């Protein structure tokens, strides 16, 4: 039974934290809902002072500003390529490591290195590797007799380079989490299936995978949310380009808010994005509850 104490004590415990959260997170978030009604351009001679425009920002977003929706398409493409690769490789990694192998402690230590690295650093190093002029990627292609590729400087391959960095940084994470989850599964269902003569493959698909369902869903939502936040790799590898080829949603809001300084317009974009992300989170939460 939880303790019941007087209101003053509860407030003393909760208030300091809430004060900070309200000032930094909730306050600004609510401020978005005010800003979105204004034409407000920071450091602009005229629109430095906000001008009320009603729902104009949204009308622009829904009727003519296709770049915003294009950013969503790019975000979905990026997520749909990167996340499945991370899950397949991560699952294989977890299955390979889920037994006694020599030096597995060192292996796990190595797997943690990408997690320790700042995403900015990861993006920068891959940029060194992918550099079309003298990077290792083209050097290796040359060694096996293939022509050099433009990588992050081309419309068709820029997205691929972002995916590679994301896969590099997050596959080990998915693998380590699934490894922990595998280790904590009950042994009885698998032993029972084995006694009934099920093959390792059947056991994996019909026993192990269903037991991992909720962990997989949680990992999936964490990874999808992270894809929506993708910024550092873009900032270091492609600047959202060429053109808008790799402008994912966070980068789009950054371009509009912090490059063009159209903060009212960007606030409208932020509000729409918050709504879309909430829908995705709630959908997954429902799935996990089932």
């Amino acid at each position, binding site marked *: 039974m939880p303790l019941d104490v007087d209101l003053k004590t509860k407030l003393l415990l909760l208030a300091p934290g809430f004060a900070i959260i309200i000032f930094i997170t909730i306050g600004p978030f609510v401020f978005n809902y005010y800003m979105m009604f204004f034409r407000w351009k920071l450091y602009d001679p005229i629109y430095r002072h906000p001008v009320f425009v009603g729902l104009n920002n949204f009308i622009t977003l829904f009727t003519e500003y296709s770049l915003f929706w294009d950013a969503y398409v790019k975000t979905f493409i990026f997520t749909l390529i990167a996340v499945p690769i991370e899950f397949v490789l991560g699952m294989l990694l977890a299955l390979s490591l889920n037994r006694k192998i020599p030096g597995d402690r060192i292996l796990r230590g190595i797997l943690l290195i990408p997690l320790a690295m700042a995403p900015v650093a990861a993006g920068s190093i891959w940029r060194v590797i992918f550099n079309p002029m003298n990077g290792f990627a083209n050097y290796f292609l040359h060694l096996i007799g293939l022509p050099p590729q433009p990588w992050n400087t081309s419309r068709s391959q820029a997205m691929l380079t972002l995916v590679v960095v994301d896969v590099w940084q997050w596959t080990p994470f998915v693998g380590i*989490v699934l490894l922990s989850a595998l280790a904590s599964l009950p042994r009885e269902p698998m032993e029972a299936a084995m006694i009934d003569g099920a093959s390792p493959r059947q056991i994996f698909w019909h026993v192990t995978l269903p037991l991992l369902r909720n962990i997989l869903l949680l990992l999936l939502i964490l990874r999808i949310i992270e894809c929506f936040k993708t910024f550092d790799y873009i900032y270091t590898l492609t600047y959202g380009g060429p053109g808008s080829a790799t402008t994912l949603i966070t980068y789009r809001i950054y371009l509009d808010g912090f490059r063009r300084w159209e903060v009212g317009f960007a606030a409208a974009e932020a509000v729409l994005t918050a709504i879309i992300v909430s829908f995705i989170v709630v959908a997954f939460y429902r799935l996990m509850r089932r």
Partner: protein
Amino acid sequence: MRSFYTIASYIFLALTLAFILFPIYVLIITSFKPFTEAFSYPPTLWPRNLTLEAYFKVFTHWGFTSYLINSLVITVSSVLLSVIVGIPMAYCLASIKVGKNWNENIAFFILSLRLLPPIVGILPLYVIYSHLKLVDTYPGLILAYTAFNLPFIVWILRGFILELPREIEESAVVDGASVFQIMIKIIVPLTYPAIIATAILSFLLTWNEFTTAVFLTAQYRKTLPILISSFIGDLQFYWNDMCAATVLSIIPAIIAVLLTQRQLVRGLTLGAVKG
């Protein structure tokens, strides 16, 4: 058949390891190359001229020390502040009845604030900060990072406190201990390892954070990730310097990860998988 799976898994592990280690290898060797070699073709797999040039330049030319101090001050203060503020919150939401069904809902609400893309909140925060003259200041950045760490710390610590046996607290209440005495003399000592691990994980996330730092700083309070991002631009490619700065700044992060190996999985899956 069994041996086929074993061999296949070893091959897979070897390839994965190569994929993971190659960029780290490139990072380390490039940091020891002189400028001209770092930019030559074909790239050398082992530096022809091993040199510490880049490491010296990072300090003498790029002002690594001031970025390091900023990163240390901001990260350590915000982690400390969020732990100090977070423990009472976590304790209250775990053990004290705030209202009917409120505990769970408040905890989840706080956590959900962390799920939104940071850019959604940073833009208005920037507008507010520029009015309050908090952009590019220590207090501004420390508060911002505290607010980002808090949901994480509260959620994880609450999970740990909920796992403690209730009898300990109940007998303390019977003995006439106040809420604050219980928190400081019973809860904190019992969850001490979890608090340390959560703090180190927050340290890691803050240390590597870029999006917030790049928008809320201008000149004086830039952190290490901003330094790392600034070596490669449209017209400049100081790859060896960038790699040297990265090697130096990743050391605390690697130590943090190795120290929290066991709690890392639990922390990063928000308590769902107990590592």
